[in-house]
């Protein structure tokens, strides 16, 4: 076997794919949030509409968006295959009695949380991404800001978006620091900082996203 395939098919190599794509998705989430927080401005959507226009035209953003789609698919497929491989390694027989140990809820349910997130991402893309690119927003029949505002006035949609943030928060509560451990980036001075940053990130980013639908629903 070629050394590159050998690396990426080893259990560590597979985890390296998870951590690199996972960290890239974390960076995307942060940028996505900063852009979307413009929806909270009381300007009737002027800033957000201009931002949306710029994003759809910029060739650099276009190129990066393809890396993003690829990362989401790679992270999801690799994650589910890894979950399957790990389940097979258990051999099918469980313990009659099993006591809880140090493993956190999030760490034990990464694939489940991730799958919920994937379903959410699919709904989210059908609802906005597709409409922005090919649907009524693209054709100019509704402004980006108004599209989002009307969507979130429907209670179940707003609530779905808020609930999805909970899954993201748990996934990142474990995932952020886990990605650094997987890459071997461990140090007695910096690991506590990475963990702290991860916990802050995993709460503040989903919280920021949750405020947006709540603003339209309640405001």
């Amino acid at each position, binding site marked *: 076997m070629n*050394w590159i395939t*050998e*690396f990426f098919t*080893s*259990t*560590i*190599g*597979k*985890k*390296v794919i998870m951590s690199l794509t996972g960290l890239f998705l974390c960076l995307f989430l942060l940028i996505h949030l900063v852009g979307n927080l413009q929806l909270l401005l009381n300007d009737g959507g002027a800033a957000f509409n201009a931002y949306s226009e710029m994003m759809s035209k910029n060739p650099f953003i276009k190129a990066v968006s393809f890396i993003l789609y690829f990362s989401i698919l790679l992270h999801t497929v690799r994650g589910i295959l*890894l979950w399957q*491989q*790990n*389940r*097979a*390694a*258990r*051999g*099918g*027989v*469980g*313990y*009659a*009695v*099993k*006591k809880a*140990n*140090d*493993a*956190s809820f999030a*760490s*034990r349910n*990464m694939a489940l949380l991730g799958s919920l997130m994937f379903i959410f991402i699919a709904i989210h893309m059908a609802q906005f991404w597709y409409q922005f690119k090919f649907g009524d927003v693209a054709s100019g029949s509704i402004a980006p800001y108004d599209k989002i505002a009307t969507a979130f006035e429907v209670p179940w949609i707003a609530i779905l978006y808020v609930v999805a943030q909970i899954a993201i928060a748990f996934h990142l509560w*474990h995932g952020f*620091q*886990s990605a650094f*451990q*997987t*890459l*071997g*980036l*461990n140090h007695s001075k910096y690991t506590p900082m990475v963990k702290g940053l991860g916990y802050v990130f995993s709460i503040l980013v989903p919280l920021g996203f949750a405020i947006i639908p709540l603003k339209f629903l309640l405001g």
Partner: protein
Amino acid sequence: MKFTIKVWRQNGPKDKGRFETYPLDGIDDDMSFLEMIDVLNQNLLTEKKDPVTFDHDCREGICGMCSMYINGTPHGPEKATTTCQLHMRSFKDGDTITIEPWRAKAFPVIKDLMVDRSAFDRIIQAGGYISINTGNAIDANAIPIEKDLSNEAMNAAVCIGCGACVASCKNSSAMLFLSAKVSHLNLLPQGKAEAKRRVNSMMKAHDSEGFGACTNTGACHAVCPKEISLTNIARLNREYIGASLTSEKE
């Protein structure tokens, strides 16, 4: 002390296996857990029944043979304690104690509580040694080693290969064991010469034995009788990534 012992009985690798429940009386609180099973087996023998098969050797916490899941935890309820070093005073009179073998595809049950852990031996055979003939032992102080470094290496070297890490891991990953063995050798000057070759081939052996991938849950460290640190797994990842990228083509 009096107990109800619920123990996994399985006649051989092909048998489906089942739990049997035995009442047990006259246990002293100073007995070790294995001595308790000895008493149980004595009773079974007098009743002309098959005694419970279990692994044990040193009975002093250094060989790693006494592998069993006790009331939902490998090696039972005491932290940093092997089954042979566990005493019956850790239980309450009248308790029901459930005993199960390690569960992992790479550790098939041989009989009752005894599992085949030779997968670990094959990982060691893949590189868990130093391949030089040393002749006479050299002077202990001839190679200067920084104290912090030797502490790190020795803290990894205390791994007894018991397999509790695999048994408790939801992925049946042997990363804690592997990382302890790789760290112990790769940190020291004697092991450095073969560091890249070692981590590559031990990693390959780990995967071909069918152990899962680490998802950093930390369950292994929580149950390890030698409290092997998770920083070893980070080191293993670092060493393996580095070795894959920089070792010469074979």
